């Protein structure tokens, strides 16, 4: 294999490594735009992963798998929304609790699944894993460089990018999206302007959770190749939370951000050791160091657009306005 192909392989692997982050980050951006910091991304990914897996395992249907993983993540987010929007619970604590709950929930059901499966391996049927495998379009996929770089990914990649673009249009170009941003920036003013604040919060927190759940489906189906593996999310949800800051709360930038984080993640395996010999642990640190740098830069620049929504973390009591 030539040097050329090796670089292409590296880019290919980087894109795939970024996909679960792409979904997790998009979900979290939608949530945060409503003024709610949900630290439960990890938990919602777990819930999406197990719900989708169980549905796929029992029905052999890729569509039900995706639907149920969305609903699984959304269910986690609904609990969060009820606690923080309706009962005014502390957002950070609720999010952390959701993370712990999600992991336990997924492992509990996964454990039962494994114990019942033949040879203690719960494996999805071939037609599902094939459906989520790399696509093949005649002619296009066969093109020399471009074919591999653009037309051979699994459907999650294209769907994720599409979702990010739609999310960007929604937030910047539609009335509803602008209303949502108003809710996150100044809830009281939005309320006074006649926006149904509570409804907006519920809808977007739940939708955001569902999108995180799709990231979980990616982990269960693609990363784990359709074999249920306990503790499969393993911190990816937390990296997605960091990526929200890196992307400056912009769905468009999330596409680039998840690619950058993905490439930093796989770089440790692709960098030729005889050229540059850096300890492996260094690469595990880089995404967070970069995020810290981005926080510093954005806080100096004080950009109004690519900054944290101002009402984040503050629960809205209409009576205290």
């Amino acid at each position, binding site marked *: *294999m030539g040097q050329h192909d*090796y670089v292409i*392989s*590296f880019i290919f*692997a980087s894109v795939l*490594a970024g996909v679960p982050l792409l979904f997790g980050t998009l979900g979290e951006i939608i949530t945060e735009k409503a003024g709610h910091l949900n630290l439960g991304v990890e938990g919602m990914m777990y819930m999406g992963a197990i719900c989708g897996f169980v549905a796929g395992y029992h029905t052999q249907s890729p569509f039900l798998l995706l639907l149920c993983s969305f609903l699984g993540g959304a269910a986690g987010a609904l609990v969060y929304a009820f606690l923080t929007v309706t009962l005014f619970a502390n957002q950070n604590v609720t999010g952390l609790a959701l993370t712990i709950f999600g992991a336990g929930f997924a*492992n509990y059901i996964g*454990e039962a699944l*494994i*114990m019942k499966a*033949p*040879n*203690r*391996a719960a*494996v999805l049927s071939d037609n599902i894993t094939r459906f989520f*495998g790399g696509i093949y379009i005649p002619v296009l996929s066969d093109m020399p460089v471009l074919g591999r770089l653009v037309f051979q990914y699994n459907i999650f990649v294209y769907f994720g990018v599409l979702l990010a673009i739609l999310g960007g249009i929604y937030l910047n170009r539609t009335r509803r999206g602008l209303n949502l941003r108003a809710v996150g920036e100044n809830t009281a003013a939005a309320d006074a302007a006649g926006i149904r604040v509570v409804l907006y919060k519920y809808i977007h927190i739940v939708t955001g959770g569902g999108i995180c759940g799709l990231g979980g489906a990616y*982990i269960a189906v693609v*990363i*784990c*190749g359709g*074999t249920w*593996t*306990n*503790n*499969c999310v*393993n911190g*990816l949800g937390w990296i997605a939370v960091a990526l929200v800051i890196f992307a400056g709360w912009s769905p468009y930038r999330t596409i680039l951000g998840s690619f950058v984080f993905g490439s930093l*993640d*796989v770089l440790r*395996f*692709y960098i030729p*050791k005889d050229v540059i010999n850096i300890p*492996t*642990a260094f690469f*595990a640190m880089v995404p967070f160091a970069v995020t810290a740098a981005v926080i510093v830069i954005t806080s100096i620049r004080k950009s109004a657009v690519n900054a944290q929504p101002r009402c984040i973390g503050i629960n809205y009591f209409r009576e205290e306005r």
Partner: protein
Amino acid sequence: MKKVSKILVLMLAVALAVSATACTVVQRGGNNPEQYSAKSDIKVGFIYIGSTSDKGYTYAHDQGAIYMQKELGLSDDQVIKKENVPEDGACEAAIKELIEAGCKIIFGTSFGYMNYMDELSKEYPDVIFSHCSGFKSNDTNFNNYFGRIYQARYLSGIAAGLKTKTNKIGYVGAYKIPEVVGGCDAFALGVQSVNPKAQVLFVETQTWYNPDLERKAAISLLDKGCDVIAQHQDTAMPQKAAEERGVWGVGYNADMTEEAPKAHLTAPIWNWGVYYKEAVQKVIDGTWKSENYFDGMKEGLVDISPLSANVAEGTQQKIDEARAKIISGEFDVFDGPIKDNTGKERVAKGSRLTDGEITSIDWFVENVKVQ
């Protein structure tokens, strides 16, 4: 409001009832350990780092525990298992619970339990502590046990060396510690014995258990042209990555043919039951002595899983020959001459590494290339 308090009272009552039963369970076993001599009333405790459903490290230990229980005819409440015990204070609490439940011998299956078991062995001289993979022991009631898994890795290397066509074999390892480095060396020596041209590409993930990273590491090796992926990791993801690319793999800990039917060749596996049966039998007979245990293929403690249909022709025969030599003692994996990958001679012709040297290997053999 009235309804809420009623529900609360009900929940409290249930909680009380549950904790009361829990207490009785503990008390039932709280007899004097001195009385245990007959087979019928010994109690055995196990502490596992993971879950018995992991289809890997803990699964293998648990299969051993089940084998021991069946062979010795113990009932279910005589074998007490604690799963998912982290390597911190929780491990001490778990051991104390086992002691309170009346366990006479306690097996700790993870490296990080070592210091807790060391301390507790002084505090409870009547209880026997047996620790897997560590290096501490005393001469009364605390030993360690491990096995010559490198012998099984050597055999799996033969299967890989015969199968590869690109002459590049990937090895996904957890950490560059002696257990992993020595295991990779044994594997590479097995490869070399049948295919001197093949290279083993080693990559370190810095984790025992991380499906995502294990998969990525395997894919990077496949991108470098490897067509067999071996592993010293706890999930089957490296095997699944190999299967997706239509190439082959060598698993670890358990037969991974179920997870990767088209890729898996064989896997080095543990039969911990051999040791557990022997140790518990000795405790029952009152002949248990604190000796460190390091057995191998001859005793049946380690082996490879049955070869799958994916192996190259003639593999079974080559492996059987090597196995017979290892079992007879005529040959062992680390017999000289062996050079490391910087060209330095590490084992001279005609000599053999001692057990101490094998468990502290920090160099790679000549056909290994670290990525």
